[in-house]
């Protein structure tokens, strides 16, 4: 009896004062929440660092330093230039001569010669030649040109090249910077938004001013058409059969396991497969977006099959049963009732699969899409699929490996463009899901 009366502390809990055990439990919950928050904060911090460094490294690619000058090319100069082997160099020489004349006329107080101007200029002969060949009527008339400066002048304008760090070389001498300043004052050189970077094709290693990601965006686009056109119908057909029609036996289990395995195969393996099957055996052309698309289709198929099957599984059986109950055939039940309801899930899976394929480089290495490839825009659909082209990630990889650090900026700029595409695709996927998804 005495024991019973001495026991009370246990029973004497109050709703107003918290006992030690509850405190401990509350504390551990608070700790767990804190861990979770820290994890998220660390994640966000990494994301912020990544975003800031990408944007900071990539923005120089979107501006470039240009020469703005009126040029008059005579018929005789045109004909003389066209007779040479390196015609573009002759055009560049005409530009340098006229710029020198202009500087002398404006009485610029800096010593200069043609070689110094040549060092400041990018490779502009190709642009000039293309313009006059397309517009022969402009010969003999003054034409306003906006042409790229060399990558070192670019670096001077965005602070990468300074008088202290610059080492005299055949690319640029410290004394040339005085000329740059003078030209800047005279309004001949200035920074401008780099449309070339967005619209142009790749350029050679000594011509960073002319390089653009446009052609490889087109290459990626054609590849994505192939991936979408093949992997969506094949993937959906395969999953509908497996999910709705196939008998459940050892064989279908085996297929299921293999699809899951296939989703985990490193992408480079698909590249080797593509090289062996599509190029060496089927004789499809090298570096063609068609082949790239086929390889990426193989890579994307398992992702699409898995997400489609999940979407089909999520449709409640009552809908199938109701359809079958009112006399629909199995196929009618699937195509009229189940598939429309599963569509948002299927599309989301497809878009995410495509986004993954869009960023893939490894398989493209083996089918010849890395190098100096994305040079020209295709004319028309067939060429788009069959002519040699690169893809965005492959182009970024190529630029990152080049000696001139201006290309390194371009690689980061390319990453920004690639990320914009990926973000857009993912946002579309989210919107589709929000808009059409139904829960039961």
């Amino acid at each position, binding site marked *: 009896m005495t024991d019973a009366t001495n026991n009370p502390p246990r029973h004497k809990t109050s709703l107003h004062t918290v006992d030690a055990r509850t405190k401990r439990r509350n504390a551990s919950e608070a700790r767990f929440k804190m861990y979770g928050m820290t994890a998220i904060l660390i994640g966000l911090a990494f994301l912020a660092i990544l975003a800031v460094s990408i944007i900071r490294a990539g923005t120089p690619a979107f501006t470039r330093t240009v020469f703005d000058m009126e040029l008059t090319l005579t018929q005789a100069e045109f004909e003389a230039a066209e007779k040479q082997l390196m015609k573009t160099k002759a055009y560049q020489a005409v530009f340098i001569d006229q710029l020198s004349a202009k500087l002398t006329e404006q009485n610029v107080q800096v010593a200069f010669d043609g070689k110094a101007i040549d060092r400041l200029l990018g490779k502009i002969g*190709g642009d000039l030649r293309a313009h006059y060949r397309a517009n022969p009527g402009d010969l003999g008339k003054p034409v306003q040109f906006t042409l790229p400066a060399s990558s070192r002048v670019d670096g001077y304008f965005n602070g990468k090249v300074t008088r202290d760090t610059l080492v005299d070389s055949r690319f640029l001498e410290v004394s040339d910077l005085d000329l740059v300043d003078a030209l800047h004052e005279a309004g001949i050189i200035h920074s401008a938004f780099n449309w070339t970077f967005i619209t142009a094709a790749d350029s050679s290693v000594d011509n960073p001013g002319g390089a653009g990601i446009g052609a490889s965006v087109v290459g990626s686009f054609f590849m994505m058409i192939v991936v979408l056109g093949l992997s969506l*119908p094949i993937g959906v057909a395969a999953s509908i059969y497996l999910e709705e029609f196939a008998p459940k036996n050892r064989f279908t289990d085996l297929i299921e396991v293999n699809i899951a395995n296939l989703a985990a195969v490193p992408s480079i393996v698909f590249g080797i497969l593509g090289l062996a099957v599509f190029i060496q055996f089927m004789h499809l052309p090298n570096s063609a977006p068609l082949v790239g698309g086929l390889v990426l289709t193989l890579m994307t198929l398992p992702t699409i099959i898995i997400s489609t099957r999940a979407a089909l599984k999520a449709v409640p059986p009552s809908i199938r049963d109701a359809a079958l109950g009112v006399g629909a055939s199995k196929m009618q039940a699937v195509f009229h009732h189940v598939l429309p309801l599963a569509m948002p899930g299927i599309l989301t899976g497809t878009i995410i699969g495509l986004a993954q394929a869009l960023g893939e480089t490894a398989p493209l290495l083996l089918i*010849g899409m890395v*190098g*100096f490839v994305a040079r020209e825009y295709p004319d028309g659909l067939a060429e788009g699929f069959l002519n040699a082209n690169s893809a965005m990630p492959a182009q970024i990889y190529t630029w*990152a490996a080049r000696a001139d650090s201006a290309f390194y900026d371009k690689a980061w700029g390319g990453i920004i463009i690639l990320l914009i595409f990926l973000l857009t695709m993912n946002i579309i996927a989210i919107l589709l899901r929000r808009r059409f998804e139904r829960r039961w």
Partner: protein
Amino acid sequence: MTFKLTASALAIAAVSATSAAARDNVQVAGSSTVLPYASIVAEAFGENTDFPTPVVESGGSSAGLKRFCEGVGENTIDVANASRKIKDKEIKACAENGVTDIIEVRIGYDGIVFASQQNGPAYTAFTPSDMFNALAPKVVVDGALVDNPYTQWSEFNADLPAADIMAFIPGTKHGTREVFEEKVIAAGCEATGAMQAMIDGGMSHDDAEDACLAVRTDGRAVDIDGDYTETLARIEANPNGIGVFGLAFFENNQDKLKVATMDGVMPSTESIATGEYPVSRPLFFYVKKAHIGVVPGLKEYASFFVADELAGPEGPLAAYGLVSDPELAKIQAVVSDEVTMGGGM
């Protein structure tokens, strides 16, 4: 419906790809050292002629030559770039696949330089012996061949700074590695007497030559399998590091790198052209003669490449860092007469 349409359109495209094989552009693949030069030429070729711009893929000399030797036909490449001479084994492999007439074109020379961070230790002068002592697994100390005991450069050459040995050398898949081994490590092996010590220790001459090329594996010599940009990144992160670069790459990045002399000679296009600077190598491309006249622009591309205006000392290739070939006229004749290897016309 739309899916079906796309799918069938693709199928048609795939079929027509094989039939519409009349390729109108030159296809090139191979060495990543030659790639920059080939891309300059390809761009200029597209801008200055009415032919389409050739496609130049990278991937390495060996991979390029392998694809070159796969056979003759539209789906094989026309030109292989190489930073070394084609091997007999590769010529044989070519012949087995019907690629018998190969035109070898030497485009010039490439220097290999040793460079370090601008603000790192004063690595200003090396000899092959220094490199061998720093990087070989076994070196000669007091007349005996022992496991490499050195951790700092100053330990074997008092003129070098007292900094930890750390070298970033090209990986074995690079053509540059071979030149590095042959012209630097092997030369150092002989000069330090390590080779003689190996032969005295009972090795045959050939085995000793092979053993000379080994590189220490305790982490002080790091193989770089990527491009020079990777080496540059490693050097920038590592003040004591020494990296192996191509001359053109170094010249493009002089604000970040300082270069060391080799045997007292400063690497430059001039010292390499005269042969004074010891570590250099010729660069080549190989043309399939069977494709000339079939692939439009192939011969024009080859002769454009070696024209004075491009490969000459005043051309854009030299401006980028290629050491132009003193015997360029001879090379031009080889291309215009389509002289194949082995002397056939």
